[in-house]
């Protein structure tokens, strides 16, 4: 507890920390300093509170798997990301903000479509979508913004198909999702965006109840809502969660990953020149590790005292897990700042760890494998159509990435 005695909140390092200028892929230098010097220490966040920050790979995995750590944002001490999300997460509960056993019960209602065999069965249609989008790119004008014309439409199309949501509404989803992941959104904006999405999925569930199809929302409607296991509103909120998660994360991995590869041409060549699925799968894991786009960290609160690295995290203390720096921990990944598509990166925590680890990860993996194994071989001369220093990065986002990625070929 020495930290709390010697440091007043005003003196603590503040989260989020700035990245080094000119180095968009590396985590903030101050995070490295903490990892090396005080791997479990206090930081200050927007509301003036001072949660613990966990920076070592091993500690992140140990604590995220520890039942003394809760994901419940209604508990005092929980380190909320923003004022808007504080209000949203306390009023709209989905399984990601619950602890077991409720979490397990609700999560299991939506795991079926993400089983490996079911996701593998989608691979041909994902390949088709990718090929169609690339055909359209090649037929259209250049330069073109890769985010708008490729990175965002692909995961949107896939998650809409899986959930049974008409893709024609994608402008509506993307607009509202953007409000939700923007760090500067006010509570009112955030609630309005969530509400609009939930209302829409609620209506869609009514349609599916009457006329179910072969999609996740229909399954929820028929198997969970009709049987009284879940309320229709809960099902709609779960749908919003999956829709949003499916849109933003994979899209940012595609665009930021492409930029990282364009900056590392030898690594890009490995992907361009291989048709070995294992090489591609390994490359995806390394890009997930290296980029760790979930840069706002996993948020939790301790529900019992925990001793770790000579510190005592007390019940009621907030805990932030800095998975971006955990994924650059030299103890876990030698020469962590090197993008090396041939390394074994599978133990990364880019999808989190513990029972809340990303539900959609099998789908994300297949999407990224298809993209990375197709895009650069079909457009081998792909290059950035602007200066690196003109790109705008999502420093203010819950998910890291680039706003636009102008490319040509």
């Amino acid at each position: 507890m020495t930290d709390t005695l010697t440091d007043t909140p005003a003196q603590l390092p503040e989260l989020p920390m700035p990245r080094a200028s000119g180095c968009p892929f590396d985590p903030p230098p101050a995070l490295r300093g903490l990892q090396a010097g005080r791997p479990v220490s206090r930081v200050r966040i927007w509301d003036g509170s001072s949660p613990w920050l966990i920076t070592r790979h091993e500690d992140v995995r140990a604590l995220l798997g520890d039942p003394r750590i809760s994901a419940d944002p209604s508990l005092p001490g929980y380190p909320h990301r923003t004022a808007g999300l504080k209000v949203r997460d306390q009023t709209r509960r989905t399984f990601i903000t619950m602890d077991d056993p409720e979490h397990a019960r609700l999560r299991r209602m939506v795991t079926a479509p993400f089983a490996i065999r079911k996701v593998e069965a989608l691979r041909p249609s994902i390949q088709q979508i990718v090929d169609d989008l690339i055909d359209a790119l090649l037929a259209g004008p250049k330069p073109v913004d890769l985010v708008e014309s490729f990175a965002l439409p692909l995961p949107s199309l896939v998650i809409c198909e899986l959930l049974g949501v008409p893709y024609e509404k994608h402008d509506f989803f993307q607009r509202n999702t953007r409000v939700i992941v923007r760090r500067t959104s006010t509570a009112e904006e955030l609630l309005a965006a969530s509400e609009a999405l939930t209302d829409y999925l609620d209506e869609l569930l009514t349609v599916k109840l009457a006329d179910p199809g072969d999609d996740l929302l229909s399954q929820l409607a028929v198997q969970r809502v009709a049987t009284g296991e879940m309320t229709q509103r809960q099902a709609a909120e779960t749908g919003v969660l999956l829709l949003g998660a499916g849109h933003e994360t994979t899209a940012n991995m595609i665009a930021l990953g492409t930029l990282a590869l364009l900056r590392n041409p030898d690594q890009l060549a490995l992907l361009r020149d291989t048709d070995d699925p294992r090489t591609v799968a390994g490359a995806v894991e390394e890009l997930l590790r290296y980029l760790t786009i979930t840069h706002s960290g996993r948020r939790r609160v301790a529900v019992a005292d925990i001793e770790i690295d000579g510190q005592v995290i007390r019940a009621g203390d907030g805990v932030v897990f800095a998975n971006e720096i955990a994924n650059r921990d030299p103890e876990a990944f030698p020469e962590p700042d090197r993008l090396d598509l041939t390394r074994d990166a599978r133990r990364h925590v880019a999808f989190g760890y513990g029972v809340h680890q990303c539900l959609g990860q099998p789908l994300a993996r297949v999407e990224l494998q298809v993209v990375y194994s197709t895009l650069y071989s079909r457009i081998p001369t792909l290059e950035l159509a602007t200066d690196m220093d003109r790109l705008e990065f999502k420093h203010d986002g819950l998910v890291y990435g680039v706003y636009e990625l102008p490319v040509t070929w």
Partner: protein
Amino acid sequence: MRVEVDQPRCVASGQCVLMAPEVFDQDDDGIVLLLSSDPDPVHEEGVRESAAVCPAAAIRLLEN
């Protein structure tokens, strides 16, 4: 090596199936199914990696 799985803990991340498809499968809800509790030594590395990446610590290894 002996393998045990704890199905109530499993969160259906499917990582074990990716690492060692000869030893692990998933049921219709994505929950782990153990295909062999006494895997062939050639699959041991995959099984160890599965246990290491399983986010829910639902895979237990007993070395014999």
